[in-house]
């Protein structure tokens, strides 16, 4: 059997086996093995990246084709790595065989999406992934899962229509062929020749794809499913959910670029230094950053916080993709990797906290650093990485992204990106302090540190965070390989963009030096300052029971009040209203049409006859 097939189907088969066998202990082993296979093969296949490895299954109805190339491999690596970590953590948090089945199934789906070599395969695995992740959420919360599923399926159907339109015109699903045809199309547009797709059709396809991938990537205003879905599921699984599944959306956007980029660029024209269609993506990405970041700051629930944070971070990636230069693309890919790494890590940390304490809101936490030192260490890495502190991987990717955006002379986007970065600090501070430091509620006195499996999982991700942070050149090398040219120069430790350089190793050294100096100062003379128990702050408001702001409670309430007007515009509510409206409509329709009287039914027949008569006469 082909390696690709093994990669794709091993988790699924393992999941099915785990579900069927359903003996505690064995199912975990099977599951972890199933998740390890893709990781192992992904590592093995590194050598064959450009070897044209491909695989096809003829289902009769469709042909499933998989192929491996550098881009694929990159995402495959992300998926397999984070997926493996999440599955490993699932050993502790997994409640029953049901979760094993669907967690592994969704991993399968993700890998299938990444490896797909034609649109149909892409779509099929997309659906599998959606369905499996939905089932994971359904286990916990019906409303959240329904929202997630409906939006995802909405997106998926949009994609289906788009690919159907492409298929109807071109008669193929194959990426390469579509790409070729689209290039031809682009030329045809450029030279005003006859095109297969009219302008309207191509825009429609673009919009449909935008919806499809936007939903998965949590793009504003289609992000509303994400907070609920991420928070209302198994937290170990949420690591994969946020870390990997959302990347399929990113991957989709890249595919969109690859398939139709030229065509759309020529058809729609440019905008400043970028293309119009790309700018739309980028702009929406920028909005996503801001909205996600602000909302993350306002959350009282850790899981929600990271969910919004995740949305925010994905916005960066979209900006990177939207800008559309080779550099920004690389930045986006790089950030996709780092986001997967640190956000996966974050969710594993949250999983550990939730697993050990059973609590999710800031108000119930505090002072856990003492009790869970290892987890805290991991969290430290993750926080640094997300906040973009060198020399962790988060900094490297963000830096490249900033450079890419700024270098393209796009001030609005740049502003958005910077704002997002700033707001990142805002919510991270809260997480750092409220969870790990400060006074510990008494019921958390007996909390233990992370269980082994989760610890290992976190360690893996943290390790990658650090390694790739110190040696960003590793990633850059891969990215260059994808683009087939040297976009980011430099060596293992240095990223050279031509107009700027980042030397991770140097910074590491400076950092260590700084820490050492700071330590010396600390140990030499600093005095620990006692903090009062109720460290309220009021920001010019009277302190009441309602307006009791601590870092654990309503910390950013003033911010919330400031933004009150904007917060009222809730897309979540809009979708909810649409849903309720459709339900009411359905009710009305049902009661009017199927009103129980056989006479009315006979009237329907008469009406149809009348229509036939008028049609025919």
């Amino acid at each position, binding site marked *: 059997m082909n390696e690709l097939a093994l990669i794709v189907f091993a988790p699924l088969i393992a999941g099915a086996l785990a579900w069927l066998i359903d003996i505690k202990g064995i199912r975990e082993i099977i599951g972890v093995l199933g998740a390890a296979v893709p990781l192992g093969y992904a590592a093995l296949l590194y050598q064959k990246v450009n070897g044209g490895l491909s695989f096809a299954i003829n289902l009769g109805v469709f042909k499933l084709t998989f192929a491996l190339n550098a881009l694929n491999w990159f995402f495959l690596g992300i998926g397999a790595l984070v997926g493996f970590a999440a599955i490993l953590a699932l050993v502790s948090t997994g409640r029953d065989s049901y979760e094993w089945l669907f967690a592994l199934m969704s991993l399968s789906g993700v890998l299938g999406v990444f490896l797909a070599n034609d649109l149909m395969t892409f779509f099929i695995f997309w659906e599998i992934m959606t369905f499996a992740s939905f089932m994971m959420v359904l286990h916990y919360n019906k409303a959240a899962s329904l929202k997630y599923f409906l939006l995802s399926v909405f997106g998926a159907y949009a994609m289906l229509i788009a690919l159907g339109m492409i298929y109807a015109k071109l008669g193929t699903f194959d990426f390469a062929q579509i790409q070729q045809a689209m290039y031809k199309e682009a030329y045809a547009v450029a030279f005003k020749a006859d095109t297969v797709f009219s302008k309207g059709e191509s825009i429609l396809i673009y919009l449909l794809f935008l919806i499809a991938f936007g939903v998965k990537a949590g793009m504003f205003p289609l992000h509303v499913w994400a907070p609920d879905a991420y928070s209302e599921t198994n937290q170990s699984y949420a690591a994969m959910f946020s870390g990997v599944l959302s990347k399929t959306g990113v991957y989709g956007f890249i595919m969109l670029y690859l398939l139709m980029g030229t065509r759309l660029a020529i058809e729609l024209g440019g905008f400043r230094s970028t293309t119009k269609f790309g700018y739309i993506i980028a702009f929406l990405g920028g909005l996503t950053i801001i909205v996600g970041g602000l909302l993350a700051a306002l959350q009282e629930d850790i899981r929600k916080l990271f969910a919004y944070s995740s949305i925010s971070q994905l916005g960066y990636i979209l900006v990177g993709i939207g800008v559309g230069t080779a550099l920004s693309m690389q930045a986006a890919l790089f950030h996709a990797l780092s986001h997967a790494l640190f956000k996966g890590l974050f969710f594993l940390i949250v999983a550990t906290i939730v697993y050990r304490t059973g609590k999710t809101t800031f108000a119930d936490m505090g002072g856990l650093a003492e009790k869970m030192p290892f987890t805290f260490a991991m969290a430290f890495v993750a926080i640094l990485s997300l906040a973009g502190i060198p020399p962790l991987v988060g900094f490297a990717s963000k830096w490249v992204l900033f450079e890419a955006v700024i270098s393209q002379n796009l001030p609005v986007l740049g502003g958005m990106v910077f704002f997002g970065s700033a707001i990142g600090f805002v919510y991270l501070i809260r997480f750092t302090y409220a969870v790990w430091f400060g006074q510990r509620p008494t019921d958390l006195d007996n909390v233990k540190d992370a269980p082994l499996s989760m610890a290992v999982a976190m360690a893996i991700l943290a390790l990658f965070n650090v390694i790739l942070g110190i040696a960003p050149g590793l990633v850059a090398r891969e990215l260059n390989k994808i683009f087939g040219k040297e976009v980011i120069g430099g060596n293992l430790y240095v990223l050279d963009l031509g107009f700027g350089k980042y030397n991770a190793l140097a910074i590491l050294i400076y950092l260590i030096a700084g820490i050492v100096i700071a330590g010396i100062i600390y140990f030499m003379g600093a005095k620990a300052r006692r903090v009062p128990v109720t460290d309220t702050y009021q920001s010019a408001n009277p302190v009441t029971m309602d307006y009791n702001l601590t870092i654990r409670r309503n910390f950013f309430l003033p911010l919330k009040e400031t933004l009150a007007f904007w917060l009222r515009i809730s897309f979540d509510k809009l979708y909810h209203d649409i849903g309720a409206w459709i339900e009411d409509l359905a009710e009305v329709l*049902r*009661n009017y049409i*199927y*009103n*129980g*009287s*056989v*006479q009315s039914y*006979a*009237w329907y027949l*008469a009406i149809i006859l009348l229509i036939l008569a008028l049609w025919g006469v």
Partner: protein
Amino acid sequence: MNPYYFASIALILIGLYAILAKRNVLKMLVGLSIMETGVNLLLISVGYVSGRSAPILSEGITPDRAVDPIPQALVLTAIVIGVATTAMALSVVINLYEKYKTLNVEEIRRLRG
């Protein structure tokens, strides 16, 4: 317009009218029955050939002096089917009346929505 055609269409439509406008179930079934009669008449008139005799080849009737036998065969079947439907419908109505104590369609609508 031939009177037979006219009559058959009119019967069909009158039957339809009964179903559309009458609230009594039995009346609707009367309408259905009339409709079936109309359809049968239509089939027969479609098969009629002016000046020819019944397709029973005795008493000196040669094949070229007989009308089309097929519609007649069809209508034989259709009539029987009609009476079967009617019988079924009436037994259903009897059952219905036993339970609902009404024949008004406006009141026979417990199943809805």
